[in-house]
């Protein structure tokens, strides 16, 4: 039985958060809740997300989850942000159930970012 509260994947993402920081000129959404502060930022070209970044104040699972989201959603359609679900992140990082609320803050931030980006795109049309 392991006493390690973090999965290998969580440790890996936490140790090297390649997407930490918000790209210049990006649209962003910030949410503070459940002892977590998260800012997600996106640069888009048309309907595609070209770059993602994050800033986070939270436990290692939050930082790893933010990094995992950014790494997997670049070059995907903006519309996917709007119905993003954090359940895959929770599973892939083996997030303990007592921290589920913190990861759901990321879900809220992603959806909020999606709305902001969508609104910006619509205003250009």
């Amino acid at each position, binding site marked *: 039985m392991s006493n390690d509260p973090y999965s290998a994947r969580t440790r890996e993402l*936490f140790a090297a958060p390649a997407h930490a*920081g918000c790209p210049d000129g990006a649209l962003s959404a*910030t949410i*503070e809740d459940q002892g977590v502060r998260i*800012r997600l930022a996106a640069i888009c070209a048309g309907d595609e997300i070209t770059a993602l970044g*994050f800033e986070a104040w939270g*436990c*290692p699972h939050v*930082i790893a989850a933010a990094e995992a989201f950014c790494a997997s959603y670049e070059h995907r359609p903006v519309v996917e942000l709007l119905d993003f679900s954090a359940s895959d992140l929770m599973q892939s990082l083996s997030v303990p159930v007592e921290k589920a609320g913190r990861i759901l803050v990321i879900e809220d931030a992603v959806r909020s970012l999606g709305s902001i980006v969508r609104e910006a795109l619509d205003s250009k049309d």
Partner: protein
Amino acid sequence: MIYLDYAASTPVDAHVAEAMTALMTVAGNYANPSSTHAAGRRSVEYIAHAAGQLADLLNTDADRLIWTSGATESDNLAILGGAYFRQKRGRHLITMRTEHKAVTDPMNVLERQGFEVTWLDPESNGVLDIAKLEVAMRDDTQLVSIMHVNNETGVVQDVRKIGAICRERNVLLHVDAAQSVGKLPIDLGSWPVDLMSMTAHKVYGPKGIGALYIADRPGVHVDPLLFGGGQQRRLRPGTLPAQQIVAFGVAADVARLRMQDDLAHLTVMRDRFWSGISDLPGISINGDFESGFPGILNVSIEGIEGESLLLALEPICVATGSACNSKSQEPSYVLRALGLSDELAQSAIRFSFGRPTRSEDIDFAIERYRSAIEMLRRIAPERVA
């Protein structure tokens, strides 16, 4: 791995390990000390010698010591046993909010059984204002429990002054000395302390062995919590683990001989560490640097999440809160009692130093702490307005 968690546990000293293992094998003396044959009697002699070694460290008589499984059991026996023994005289107890769970939990149990407990708050530096204790004393107060060195902050309480107040009123004073026995001078020959809890594994002995000192004075006694044998005057029955007791005795002897050198070494290590990080913006010491035990340095830093800091510090082994609370996500109740905000309490890291700590370890820890703070601050967003 850099181990800076000596307040949680220490490695077994080589002399201690040698004495302990020598007793356990067929070539040693493994007999049950309750047996009346020659081998059993030899075990009793070994135990008596160890009790003498521990008594020498504390300047008391060996027959005032009851062997237990560790400080938690000693605390339970002192508080529950002491309260039960004195309950016909009164059912009021006094303790501090910054005590170890091994003290607060038995106090909670007593509250549920109808005893009254007064919980004293420390000053912001963790030290008890003695006047608060005097005010809290009542005619029916029977027991005060105040720890010597706080396990999270290293704050040292003046147990002699506290004991003097208790003696004036014929109130028992129990002192949890798990963090101070073998590390700071203790003189039970002159200190007005009635009950003192201690453990071997914080002082380079093995886990699983501790002791409770019970003063030889009228009205000082505890009711037993365990039953099933006549050992130790029926106060704490059970087969005595001779090899662990011998180990505790040797650890006590080593500690007595090394204490001044150990204290000087811990002071150098702590001061080196603090001077390497004290310029970081928003950093503060929890406790009292000047009068605190030099083996423990508890620091908080603004704008940092403690759990992430702990992971970013790896491979340094340190603690958030106390080891006993380390699975909890809650900020330390000890630091909250000092008046820290949840966020500042949550950022706290306890660095604790020991005999094996080297200057290189400290320098590595300084570098790692600074880089972890820099990284976590860099990726943290501004607060939402």
